[in-house]
């Protein structure tokens, strides 16, 4: 068994069978990851001691007769999720010295299932960004081309799995922060229905949109993680009390009888030629698998960005009010408490976070609340209604996950240009729908000469995760696109 390259399912099977110990897997990954991460810089912090401690615990439980669904599986955790006793920064200077006093429910459930924490991964500050370039703690590089972004905001979690520095990872998705970096890094990224996975211990960005989900190199592994973390949590009142049908292993090999919706508003003629060819091939693959392609309309999809860039900043400005230098994080002294607040926040937040706090504060301010925030909430209702109507005609909607392959660093300096990266992922987020990105045919970027990963987005009705993962599995099994690429050699790193 290869503890670095094998799937989570294969590792767990071997560890449960005691063919290899979790400690062996941990030691192999610890020896590998430090060198492997030198070029990619997916991690803000490695946690080898914790990894070994959890490995010993897993081995002891298995020796006592337990079977653990993720026995000995190395997992990377986005650094906006709390892991007790470790530094948890959300990629922000304001939390540079924050030590988590408890563990997030999703993380705790993974560890309880036998997974081993490799470390905490880099992200756009407070998960605000689409490229990973907004972290206060340096750049993470795309493992398939170190001159390009890994995508964001779950930059390190996508890069770590894509670059074989962890078998699985946890990310969070507010407007595309799992799906877009998954597409860029050649991995499966899955955002479950809003409320399926507890947000307890996730540092809040936009609470009505934030959702934790897995990255993995196979759909089946993503399903294994989903099965471990999904379900009601009394510590998160917005987590939904609905039975979770196990999704792993419930795989299908074809798409006969499945109606796949192609969204008129997401027509591929907006894309560059190589990206368009990748998606046209993917749609043909779906048809070859027996799916019936149907045209659907989301007339309000074009309002998604405008709606999102009111709602998400509004909720962010409210959520981030807690960072005031009193209870945790950075404090910069001032003559009185007001000056202390203003200086602390000025020194602690980076430019993108400040920008979104300002947008949100403006949109919620007296005189504009109805015109902006309430209007956006109503637009959100219409967008969700459009999806509901579309799902009367189809079982799953497919589209690009991003409008291009990974771009070069500093390629999108204008904030609005960057916001457009989320064009395809945001409407589904506003509707709370389960949505994933699965690798499709690699494409050569317009400004490059070798193929880079691409992701096909699949979105299905609320709480139909099991079916959605099944469709993605059929596509993956028939195409195996991810296997066409191998990560760049770390030795080639120019940084």
């Amino acid at each position, binding site marked *: 068994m290869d503890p670095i390259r094998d799937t989570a399912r294969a590792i767990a099977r071997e560890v449960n069978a005691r063919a290899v110990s979790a400690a062996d897997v941990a030691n192999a990954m610890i020896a590998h990851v430090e060198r492997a991460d030198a070029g990619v810089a997916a991690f803000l912090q490695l946690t080898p001691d914790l990894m070994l401690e959890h490995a010993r615990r897993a081995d002891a439980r298995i020796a006592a007769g337990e079977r653990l669904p993720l026995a000995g599986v190395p997992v990377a955790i986005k650094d906006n999720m709390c892991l007790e006793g470790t530094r948890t920064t959300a990629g922000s200077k304001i939390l540079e010295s924050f030590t988590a006093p408890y563990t997030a429910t999703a993380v705790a459930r993974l560890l309880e299932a036998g997974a081993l924490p490799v470390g905490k991964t880099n992200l756009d500050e407070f998960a605000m960004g689409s490229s990973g370039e907004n972290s206060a703690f340096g750049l993470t590089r795309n493992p398939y081309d170190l001159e390009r972004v890994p995508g964001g905001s779950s930059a390190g979690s996508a890069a770590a799995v894509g670059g074989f520095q962890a078998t699985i990872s946890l990310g969070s998705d507010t407007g595309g922060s799992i799906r877009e970096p998954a597409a860029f890094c050649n991995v499966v990224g899955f955002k479950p229905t809003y409320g399926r996975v507890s947000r307890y211990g996730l540092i809040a960005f936009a609470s009505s949109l934030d959702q934790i989900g897995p990255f993995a190199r196979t759909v089946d592994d993503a399903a294994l993680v989903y099965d471990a973390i999904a379900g009601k949590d009394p510590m998160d009142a917005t987590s939904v009390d609905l039975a979770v049908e196990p999704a792993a292993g419930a795989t299908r090999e074809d798409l006969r009888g499945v109606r796949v919706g192609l969204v008129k508003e997401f027509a591929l003629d907006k894309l560059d030629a190589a990206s368009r060819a990748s998606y046209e091939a993917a749609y043909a693959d779906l048809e070859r698998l027996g799916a019936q392609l149907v045209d659907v309309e989301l007339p309000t999809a074009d*309002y998604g960005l405008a709606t999102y*860039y009111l709602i998400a900043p509004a909720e962010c400005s409210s959520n981030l009010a807690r960072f005031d230098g009193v209870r945790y994080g950075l404090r910069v002294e001032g003559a009185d408490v007001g000056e202390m607040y203003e200086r602390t926040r*000025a020194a602690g937040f980076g430019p993108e976070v400040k920008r979104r706090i*300002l947008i949100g504060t403006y949109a919620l301010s007296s005189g504009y609340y109805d015109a902006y925030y309430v209007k956006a909430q*109503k637009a959100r209702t*219409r967008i969700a209604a459009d999806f509901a109507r579309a799902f009367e005609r189809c079982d799953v909607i497919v589209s690009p996950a991003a409008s291009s392959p990974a771009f070069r660093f500093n390629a999108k300096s204008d904030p609005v240009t960057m916001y457009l990266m989320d064009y395809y992922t945001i409407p589904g987020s506003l*509707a*709370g729908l389960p949505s994933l990105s699965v690798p499709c045919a690699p494409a050569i970027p317009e400004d490059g000469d070798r193929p880079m990963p691409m992701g096909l987005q699949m979105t299905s009705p609320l709480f139909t995760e099991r079916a959605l993962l099944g469709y993605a599995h059929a596509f993956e099994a028939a195409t195996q696109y991810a296997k066409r690429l191998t990560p760049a050699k770390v030795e080639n790193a120019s940084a």
Partner: protein
Amino acid sequence: MPVHYGERLRVTYSWWRDFRANGPRDEFRECERMSTDRIDIRHVARLARLALTDDEIRTFGPQLGSLMTHVDALRELDTESVAATAQVVPSRNVQREDTVKPEIMLSREAALRNAPQAQGGFFRVPRILSEDG
């Protein structure tokens, strides 16, 4: 209703049409020009408890104006008889028993461990009331 409403809307329409037809582009000069000075960025920063440098005011002011111009596209969407969506899942008014559960509480020590300043089991903050307040 802010002034220049019709003009901004015209620009925004054409921007969305252009995006629909041509995809993302790097130039937004037209909209930048429309950013106007309608937003008092200093006032918004005060509301947000955020001290901004002059440079930041010069940068964020137009950026905020430009973004708000884009979001003005929402005005053309009919939401007359539409309810606002605060969140999308069916839960309503989730409550729990009003009892103390020590097993899910942080100890006072743990809660204070990350505090920039603590004293006598409390968070310590600078003076809140000025002498004339």
